[in-house]
């Protein structure tokens, strides 16, 4: 129920934001004076999802909430947190939905493993197929069993 309410709330936010004059992605007043810190903030922002948007990270999003998150990231960075600590701080408050790069924990290993696994299966199948193709002529030569060879000889002898 609370999840439903959250969703309805989020939907309203989307509507409100869509109609309000657009704020824009990173604004000049958000930028940190220290370029190294700012660069880290940008990198972190690119992996965090704007929760009220559709598939946008907070670095690109115009939404108010994205701005709040950007400011939060910078606040934590200035407070001396490491990149991992900043991300953990945000995930604690907003859930793993905020991560655009899903962690490789629990069932997610399936997600990360799917590509390599499929490649292995594909490569295995292809290897078998290619070997069969390369050996095909020899297999055809030995196509007759001994019994059939006998029969063939008998037929030929009769002629």
């Amino acid at each position, binding site marked *: 129920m609370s999840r439903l309410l959250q969703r309805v709330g989020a939907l309203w936010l989307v509507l409100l934001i869509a*109609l309000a004059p657009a704020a824009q992605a990173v604004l000049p007043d958000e930028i940190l004076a220290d370029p190294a810190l700012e660069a880290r903030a940008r990198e972190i922002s690119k992996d965090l999802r704007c929760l009220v948007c559709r598939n946008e990270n907070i670095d690109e999003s115009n939404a108010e909430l994205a701005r709040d998150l950007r400011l939060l990231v910078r606040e934590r960075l200035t407070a001396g947190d490491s990149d991992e600590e900043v991300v953990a701080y945000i995930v604690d408050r907003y859930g793993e939905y905020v*991560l655009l790069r899903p962690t490789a924990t629990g069932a997610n290993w399936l997600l990360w493993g799917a*590509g390599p696994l499929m490649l292995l299966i594909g490569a295995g199948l292809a290897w078998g197929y290619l070997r069969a193709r390369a050996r095909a002529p020899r297999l055809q030569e030995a196509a007759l069993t001994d019994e059939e060879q006998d029969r063939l000889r008998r037929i030929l002898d009769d002629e």
Partner: protein
Amino acid sequence: MITELGHFALTLAFMAAIVQMVVPMVGAQKRWPGWMAVAEPAATLQFLMTAFAFAALVYAFVTSDFSLKVVVENSHSAKPMLYKISGVWGNHEGSMLLWVLIVSLFGATAAWFGGNLPPSLKARVLSVQGAIGVAFLAFILFTSNPFLRLAVPPFDGEDLNPLLQDPGLAFHPPFLYLGYVGLSMSFSFAVAALIEGRIDAAWGRWVRPWTLAAWIFLTIGIALGSWWAYYELGWGGFWFWDPVENASFMPWLLAAALLHSAIVVEKREALKSWTILLAILAFGFSLIGTFIVRSGLLTSVHAFANDPERGVFILMILALFTGGALTLFAMRASAMEARGVFAMVSRESALVVNNILLAVASFVVFFGTLWPVAAEMGFDRKLSVGPPYFNAAFTPFMLVLGLILPVGALLPWKRGRLGKAAWSLRYALVLALALALLVWVLQTGQSALGPIGVFLGAWIVSGAVVDLWSRTGRGGNRLGRLARLPRADWGKAVAHAGLGVTMFAIAGLTAWESEDIRVTRLGETFEVSGFDLTLEKVERVRGPNYFSTMGTVRVEKDGRALTTLHPEKRVYPVAQMPTTEAAIDNGFTRDLYVVIGDQQADGGYTVRTYVKPFANWIWGGALMMALGGLLSLSDRRFRVAAGARKAGSAAKPVAAE
């Protein structure tokens, strides 16, 4: 009146499609020539009726007939004519009608130009194509009728989503649909062949032009969409791994795989069952794409229709067609025996590797796109899978593909020697390594992405040149022979080089982009990567159906005036939506990209400036790929063989509308 006629014509098209589905199939099973011959007029009738219905809807949009629900919801009398027309497919009902129009068009062209096909195969192909038509016509008639009237028509419409009012996006859906639906032709051929139980080199030759045409359209459609996102969304991103983008990308990857495996069927009579499977999957992914976009299951920017009833209907179509085809495949695939024999190192093997990489890459995109749904339903985890995942999980496949491409392209059929292919590529390799090294030294300390992109780009492009040159044989007059090479050879080289250009451009843009965000007052000058920009004035301008805040930015380089840019912020009052219109100075080696933002308390304006190196090369490369496909499509062997002309003529009706 015309509206009602349109609705009536659509119903007639539905009837014609049912006849087209049933009669020729029965005829082909029973060997009754008369019944098989019904396919042709039925396909023609289905196309003509659908075209009439579509024309009726276009007429309603053009004349702003606000007694129609779709027109009210997606148009406005003040909207420019181009967007009145593109508004026809800028909504759910109209876009599905366009989809069906293209299905019937492809069916009709196969009927008109498929004279060289064996009659039973032709009847079955048209019957399967008719079945697809039946499914989607039923979908339109029963869930998404565009011809619904309103009891009380309003004075004016609600306008089209302003993001869609754009030349790039006006033609993006038709091209995508031509691609999606073009794959339905490969699907029909695959299913027909399974029913016939026979696949030979001729089949490969018939199916390849259709796949090629579909792939060309998809390439152009995707490139248009990406180009649109680049200039319209306001920060110059060109690919977002959005579910809707992925929906078009998966069929593209599979179609690319299918193109290559169909060559093996055509030339070597091997990989038959795999090619059939790919043809089924490629269209299956097109249907999945339609399902994702139309159901709103994975909501995203593009999903303008979120209606579960429609989603379930499309899911049923998807299950019926892919499920049915795959069952048929499981029953019949063993009958498709390979004939060609080839060694481990050969062109055939290289194309198998190409197919594995493309298919697995497409599978990764599929898995990542649907994982959030699976995780929520299966593991009760609400999570996101975004660009960082795709960049990490997808890109390696493309890297490997790029690395082996020039070698594979040079290997001869049947039996090759790796050493020989590598030796002929020695100059290409040296050139690519030297360029990458040069760039690596020049850019000191930046990411490795730039040099990698340069290496791959140079390697693939020069590899394509070597490939062409190696075909001219030995001795004098090699240039003359180069010009007379078959178009398929040229097409292959151009398309491969295009891929190299795009790979290089994506890496270059990502690695070397520079950005500047600031508040600037009128008359102030600031410098970004060697460009001096001055915000001269900001004025309010009135457009046909919007209000604009338009800035004038003078750009100078080394003290000389370069250009004047006009970035805009627009508000569409009817649709109540703001949009950003970036101003872009397109250059050969870089784009200068300026966006104006809100006025600040101190009277200054937020201005974002990006210098985007090699941005245009991304779409340039995509165009080269499409051009390569076109060259290949116009190769003599297809013009002589059945099934060539129809693919080319498919483009015409879209251009006319």
